């Protein structure tokens, strides 16, 4: 074998790179990067440098010309939150997947965090962050970012943890036997293996994050109104001023923003992540115009060549630092240690629950607890009604879309935008409608909750319908199954699993949305429904701590209870009986 003439390939460069020439794609790429840098720098400087004492609340100007600026600042918050969510995901997911004992605490905790109404905690976090960054707007910024973070992180963490757990066993053994350093294991095996799940989940969570952004930019906590300049607070200000044109501008801006971020961030990421499929089957490569532009431009390759040596030495250095020591003994966890660990865990959990119960009972008493539980039942009734309604309306539509490739191609991007559009931007219109038409908010809040939650159901039903094999449908047609029978024997069972997934997500979203849907206002008219969401919302506004703890605690119990008693068994049933293939 002649190795002498063989010179190029390495970990980071493909072999035999042709000398690139600068062309039109480079102009586009260069200008695009410059524009991005300008926007980030401008939006960032406003939130990071500008100091404001907390008593002077930044105001929001309803002139639509300010909207791009507000949108940029909100977007920056979203991406900062995404960054921290990713960081959290790696640390938390890694710890849970690597240590048996950590897993026993972290996974159930994550399950609860996922089901807890995040919006109920805004009061806690806003107060904490303002205290932390006394005299600076940064406190409010941090509180808003944190709110978005809590809407994004859990899903992503779960996905990462699942991916780490499902790395094929032999690959794991290979990594151990060939003594891959921790760095090498992470960058060559674990991160790529979880890439696809992480990107898709990040995209979904990011869409959900807008909702929390809108809710957290303008919030009244502990009898005080806090405002953070951004597109969410713009909407809040427009509602207060009863300014319909401003609202329309905000919604248009939001749609454009979602489209831009989808085109310039998520689509390219999804395209690139597609390379990290675990199965070895050769498939068609995904294409996307921005990725193709980037690949055809020479500028990125020049830059890559410039930073490559540095990159490579960092890679080596990290690998050396995290190398696995030879003959490092493995230990199986001792039984006694496990017992002690479990005992400590039970004690701490029990202690926390007792403390919370005592705090609530001392503050509000048993009668109020019972009353709040009844309110919880009312909200639960709304969630159930919403699910039934969405199922009846969206299942046939979703199946029709899923069965028709043409319809699917047209409607999928629309549904995707609808799912990530923050429903609370539409609340003012609905509220206005309720006032004008005299609709009882006890019923109307159901519609508000549905505005955000129903899309998950539609999304999943479309996916489920698409996964029903064509030959099964041909079979149904050839033996002449009538519509009702076809739904009963093929379509229903076929989409059941996807429906459950969609319904779980929708119900979680609806519970969270109840906090902002059961108490809405237009100008100085406030509509209040009877429900746990309004209860929490009111307690938060007043800074009534025992009621906040009671409300949030009760809602968590409801959500976790429903998950255990209804969704888990349905999910198992879907796995056991209604799995295709």
């Amino acid at each position: 074998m002649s190795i002498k003439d063989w010179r190029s390939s390495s970990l980071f460069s493909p072999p035999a790179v042709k000398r690139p020439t600068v062309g039109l794609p480079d102009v586009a790429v260069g200008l695009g990067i410059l524009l991005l840098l300008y926007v980030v720098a401008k939006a960032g400087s406003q939130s990071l440098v500008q100091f404001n004492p907390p008593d002077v609340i930044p105001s929001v100007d309803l002139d639509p010309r300010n909207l791009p600026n507000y949108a940029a600042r909100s977007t920056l918050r979203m991406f900062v939150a995404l960054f921290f969510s990713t960081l959290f995901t790696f640390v938390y997911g890694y710890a849970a997947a690597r240590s048996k004992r950590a897993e026993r605490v972290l996974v159930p905790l994550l399950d609860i965090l996922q089901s807890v109404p995040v919006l109920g905690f805004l009061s806690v976090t806003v107060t904490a962050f303002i205290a932390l960054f006394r005299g600076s707007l940064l406190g409010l910024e941090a509180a808003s970012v944190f709110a978005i973070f809590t809407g994004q992180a859990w899903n992503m963490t779960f996905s990462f943890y699942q991916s780490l757990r499902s790395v094929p066993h032999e690959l794991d053994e290979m990594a151990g036997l060939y003594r891959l350093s921790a760095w090498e294991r992470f960058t060559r095996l674990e991160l790529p293996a979880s890439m696809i799940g992480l990107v898709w989940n990040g995209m979904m969570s990011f869409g959900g994050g807008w909702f929390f952004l809108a809710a957290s930019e303008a919030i009244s906590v502990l009898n005080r109104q806090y405002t953070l300049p951004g597109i969410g607070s713009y909407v809040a200000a427009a509602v207060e001023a009863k300014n319909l044109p401003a609202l329309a501008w905000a919604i248009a801006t939001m749609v454009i923003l979602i489209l831009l971020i989808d085109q310039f961030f998520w689509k390219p990421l999804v395209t690139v992540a597609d390379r990290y499929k675990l199965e070895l089957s050769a498939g068609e490569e995904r294409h996307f115009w921005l990725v193709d532009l980037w690949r055809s431009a020479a500028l990125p390759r020049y830059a890559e060549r410039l930073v490559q040596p540095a990159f490579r030495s960092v890679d080596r250095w990290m690998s050396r630092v995290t190398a696995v020591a030879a003959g490092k003994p493995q230990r199986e966890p001792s039984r006694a240690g496990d017992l002690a660990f479990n005992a400590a865990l039970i004690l701490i959990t029990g202690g926390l629950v007792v403390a919370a119960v005592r705090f609530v009972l001392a503050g509000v008493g048993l009668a109020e607890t019972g009353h709040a539980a009844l309110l919880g039942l009312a909200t639960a009734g709304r969630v159930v009604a919403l699910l039934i309604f969405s199922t009846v309306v969206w299942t046939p539509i979703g199946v029709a879309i899923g069965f028709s490739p043409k319809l699917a191609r047209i409607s999928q991007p629309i549904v995707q935008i609808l799912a990530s559009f923050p429903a609370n931007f539409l609340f003012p219109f609905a509220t206005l409608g309720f006032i004008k038409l005299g609709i009882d908010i006890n019923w109307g809040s159901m519609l508000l909750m549905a505005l955000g939650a129903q899309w998950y159901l539609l999304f999943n039903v479309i996916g489920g319908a698409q996964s029903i094999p064509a030959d099964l449908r041909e079979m149904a047609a050839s033996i002449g199954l009538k519509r009702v029978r076809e739904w009963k024997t093929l379509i229903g069972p076929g989409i059941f699993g996807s429906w459950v997934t969609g319904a779980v997500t929708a119900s979680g979203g609806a519970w969270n949305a109840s906090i902002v849907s059961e108490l809405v206002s237009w100008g100085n008219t406030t509509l209040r429904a009877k429900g746990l969401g309004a209860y929490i919302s009111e307690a938060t506004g007043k800074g009534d701590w025992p009621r906040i703890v009671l409300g949030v605690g009760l809602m968590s119990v409801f959500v976790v209870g429903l998950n255990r008693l209804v969704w888990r068994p349905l999910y198992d049933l879907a796995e056991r009986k209604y799995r295709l293939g």
Partner: protein
Amino acid sequence: MSESNSILLSADRVAKTFPLPAGGVQTVLEDVTFQVAAGEVVALLGRSGSGKSTLLRILAGLILPSNGNVLANGMPLKGPNPGVAMVFQSFALLPWLTVQENAELGLFARGVAKETCEKEALHALSMVGLEGFEGAYPKELSGGMRQRVGFARAFVMKPEVLMMDEPFSALDVLTAENLRGEISDLWERGVFPAKSILVVTHNIEEAVLLANRIVILGANPGCIRGEVRVDIPRPRDKKGPRFVALVDYIYTVMTNPQAPVGELPAAKTSERFPMLPHARSGGISGLLEIIHARGGREDLPKLAESLSLEVDDLLPAVDASALLGFAVVAHGDVMITEAGREFATAGVHRSHEIFKEQVLKNVPFVSTVLEAIRQKKDSGISKEFLLDILDEHFSESEAARQFQTLVDWGRYAQLFEYNADQERLYPPEQEREEEPVGG
């Protein structure tokens, strides 16, 4: 074969147990003592359930033994064995790295300089005939070429012992044959980049072709039944009389769990809970029809070859036929019995009946289950109840497989019905109807 005395790897009274769901432990390996010396090719041959892959992983330092010691170069082994590289059944390649990056993986981890990494990887790739594919991704390659990358990645490490875990079993017959030949060729030419090879297989011909020494493992629990030396000069001719005789002999040994192997005495007959071979009724009847069509007697190696079946696929059906009295196995041959002949030629209804008779006659556990079902004819008995019994004797997954086999046989014999929704076993319908109401 001249073997130097340097022992690279040794296992001393190694055992491995896993806790059972119903309490107690499942013994996967029991009292295994053996060694790998420099310069030899050792094959671990056993059927599924013999713990051969577990033993390999214990020697590689990937799994800790529950009992006993493993010594690598005389030193107790505490973590992944640094002197070992492994070729995996599923190749274990990283799909997002190129062929060369996959091959370099282990060297990079050692902190070897970039140029050396490249040189070594290219050398190894050329040994397995992959020059020109350095920049390709695994998904662009065929199965055989992927496993070549697996070999190159192991060669690069220049290990003392190269371990292979059923390296050819995920490949089609022709590709496997081809690659097996090349690997054995490298060994014969003396350019093999490892001092010894330890290969796990359930393919008898593969073991005889490659190994100097075949260690035969028994199942439930896994233990060493004995050792067969292979003194046939290399390159070995698969049609040669000594080769054929040895393959026949090993087939005989493997179809007779109680037979002595080599100089070791016969394993003591255990009074363990009888285990049903994992064969479906359809597979049993298919096998018997083929044997009947070939005159009622067939050589097992020939049968396996002509059907392109591995031992692990063929032997359960053979075992089940023997257990049910449809066939007898002797000297590597399988012969059909009178009942077997009748079963193979009967029509649909009659064959169910014959199967029922044979099951009741030969499998006492089925009769026990049937008795329990009859006692509770209306409510039936639950899957859980049976799994609880099975869990006391088998691991969770094995118990589930035993249950599956039991249900398959019982359904085919029309001894009982199983409702998968309710997960309960009931007596067959006509029996329920015959019983007087309230009786």
